């Protein structure tokens, strides 16, 4: 076990982790941040997407030791329980979710994408979500939601 200092959702703390452990397991099992989902655990589905220094990474492929000294942001850090991010708001409103299991990963992918690409076209939004598997919605309402969020962010 190694003692590491992690900054997650703005809070810095020390955690004992295995050297081979992924940040996904550290978040879920040691920090009790279960909003980040484990769907495939092999980098195929995007459900465990989190932000490292503002960039989306797959939690299941990222060793915890590589997160030391970085700002980690998870789904729990997005709305802080107060107001929903526009991406979240539109996912709720347009039913861009059904079972909701892929949703945290979708949110964590769409937010940095729209921040970098506020004028993204529908096709670009589609492309940006291509690493997030969803089995319920057929993606249409997810794409609609992200498009609507982009529009509201611009206005």
């Amino acid at each position, binding site marked *: 076990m190694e003692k590491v200092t992690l900054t997650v959702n703005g809070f810095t703390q020390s955690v004992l982790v*295995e050297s081979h452990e992924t940040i996904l397991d550290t978040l*879920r099992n040691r920090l*009790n*941040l*279960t*909003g*980040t*989902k*484990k*769907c*495939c*655990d*092999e980098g*195929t*589905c995007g*459900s465990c997407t989190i932000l490292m220094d503002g960039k989306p990474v797959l939690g299941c492929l990222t060793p915890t030791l590589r997160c030391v000294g970085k700002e980690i942001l*998870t*789904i*729990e850090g*997005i*709305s802080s*329980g107060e107001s*929903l991010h526009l991406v*979240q708001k539109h*996912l*709720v*409103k*347009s*039913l861009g*979710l*059904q*079972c*909701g*299991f*892929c*949703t*945290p990963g979708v*949110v964590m992918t769409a937010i940095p994408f729209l921040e970098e690409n506020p004028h993204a076209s529908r096709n670009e939004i*589609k*492309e940006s*979500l*291509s*690493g*997030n*598997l*969803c*089995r*319920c*919605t*057929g*993606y*249409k*309402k*997810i*794409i609609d939601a992200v498009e609507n969020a982009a529009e509201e962010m611009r206005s």
Partner: protein
Amino acid sequence: MTGAIGKPTPYIDAVQKVTGQAMYADDYKFPNMVYVSCLRSTESHAKIKSLELKKAEASPGVIAIVTGKDIPVPFGVLSISRDETAMAIEKVRYQGEIVAAVAAETIEAAEAGVKLINVEYEPLTEFFTPQDSLKTCTPDEQIHAHTKDHKNIHKTAELRFNEPEKELETAKHKQTGEFKFAGVTHGFTEPHSAVAMWNGDETLTIISATQVPHYLQKNLSKVLGLPLHKIQVKKPVLGGGFGGKSDPFPHEMIVSFLSKKIKRPVKCTFSREEVFITHHGRHPTEINMSLSCDAGGKITALDADIIIDGGAYGSFGVVTSYYNGVLLQGPYEINKFGFRTRRTYTNKHQCGAMRGHGAVNPRYAVETLLDMMAHNMKMDPCDLREKNFLSEHSSTVGEFRITSNGIRDCIAAVRKKSDWDSRYGKLPYGHGLGVACGFFISGSALPILWNRYPQTVVHAKLDFDGRIVMFSGASEIGQGSDTLLVQIAAEELGIPMDFVQVEVADTKTTPVDLGSYSSRVTFMVGNAAKTAASNIRNEMVKAISKEKDTTAESLIFRNGRIFTKDKSLDITWEEGVEMAMAGRGAFVESGFYISPKLGGNFKGAGAGLSPSYSFGAFISEVEVNPKTGETNVIKVWGAHDCGKALNPLAVEGQIEGSIHMGLGQTMSEEMRYKNGQQLNANFFDYRIPSSLDTPDMDVTIIESNDPEGPYGAKEAGEGPIHPVLPSIGNAVFDAVGVRMMELPITPDKVLKKIKENV
């Protein structure tokens, strides 16, 4: 409708889900909890010669190890095929079957323990194709001892009406096809997970990712020898099911047995590979089907011989066998009709129920043959279908009662929106349009386990705080059933939705519901919820009309107020609640649903019976590159008759999700095996469509207003998948002139056909 019903309504649990606060099974953690890892068979069909546990037992952190002999009672979702045990006993029947389970202080310690177990196998003859399983073998080679005539046939389902074979022998217009469908799997995102706890009062609580808490309770009772009243099954937020979580599962038996044995909470969560191995998906299917028409295009007969590859265990297979045939009786009127389905056991992952249960593959066959017929008779494929639709309030040859039926509106809608009449058959080479129709049950009229109870009961509770709580066993699996319960109560009582909350899917606190499968929830639970809420209203009306001296009929409940038309009485909801509860306090009202008696008096007459059927018509547009064989679905127009859209957002979501899943099966998904081992047990190699593969979708909701559905509603979750697949296949024909008789339609198959065609 003046309230919440019929309005696009976001899900009541959506904020929880979108903020990561929703609790799925694996998110639950309890003090002193232990973790389970499973040892899985490396052989497809073999005797277990020896099982050596000593080293594993001594491994650090290991608390207990269980094997098949510890939990020997067989179980299964259907009482007629309880052929599975929690772990293999004496022999294994597929690669990946659980042989032993290790419980340890951490998941790592459990996994380390599993590696220290030694198993010796003695190989038996392996059966990997249904053709192998249809042959006679020695008793020792039989996958299950109970199959007849020393063959590995699990079930033969056959029904025949009015000698279709005679008609087909002499028919002038006849089409015959041999079709082949790869097995596909649900691909839900949340892996199976269950946590069991043995409570201080000698009862069991299990939190499990299940679509069927009631059947799990029943099977746990049998397997553990524990009375039903000592078992609490709770379904947490569930990450997708599509039929893949509608059986009781071995790991649920294992964690329950272990928690009782070691008196600690026990959790087991599967890896994605284990989810693929557990499977229970759509059966690999081979169909030989013939269809005939008279000179005017009226269908005269249909006959099908179907083989489905069931894998190692029964699951829903008996029902699947029937559904492959009986669900061909609509949406067209076919008076000479027959089928035989044989379900074989093979040494592969077991198959079961998956969205559109049993009818998806044969629907592809029917709709393809109809398209071939239209082409051959030089008729428009839409026209040919329209000549044959069952009418409203009619009956099928197998005595299905048809009530509402919006199929004509469905086909008219997609025909118009896709500009079919001016584009079909006229697009440039490589571009094509295809049409197909379908229908599906709104729940089975007969319960799986025969009893005299209703199929569902809902309780509505009113208390001093003015809040309505709807208690229902219905399992929210992403389809929106919790939201539906709230909408219905709000509608009946004329109150805002935030006055209504739900307690659901907990066999200790909620009345029995059979589960979220066979598209039964909206119709059955919806009806029960409506009755329960309207009974609350009746009680309030009684009290208010007595106290205020008005007639009961004159009271209107709307917008959080209760008033008479002339407003001589106009009180708030809270005032009404106070009057209703005076002298009696909080009360509960109940509603239930039980299907009317339906169907004929012959063996097999119960299969496919439903109080109502949904209908649909879809048109797909594809682009095929004739040089590479690559097929791209550009747009899908889908019209589905759901009776009445109680929540149009949810209905659209179901139709769009069906397009996704139908697209996957048609274009890319396939359970691939070599010598019994799955070659693609991951999302890299098992390709479900991504956002980039998603075609444009144009969804039309048709409301035929069912006479018995709640507010006229019927199902929308499974019916829409049926037309998707054949509409794509037929579009490929329109594009490049080749008939795709095998799914998935991969580029190599298209290219081969195009080359043969030249």
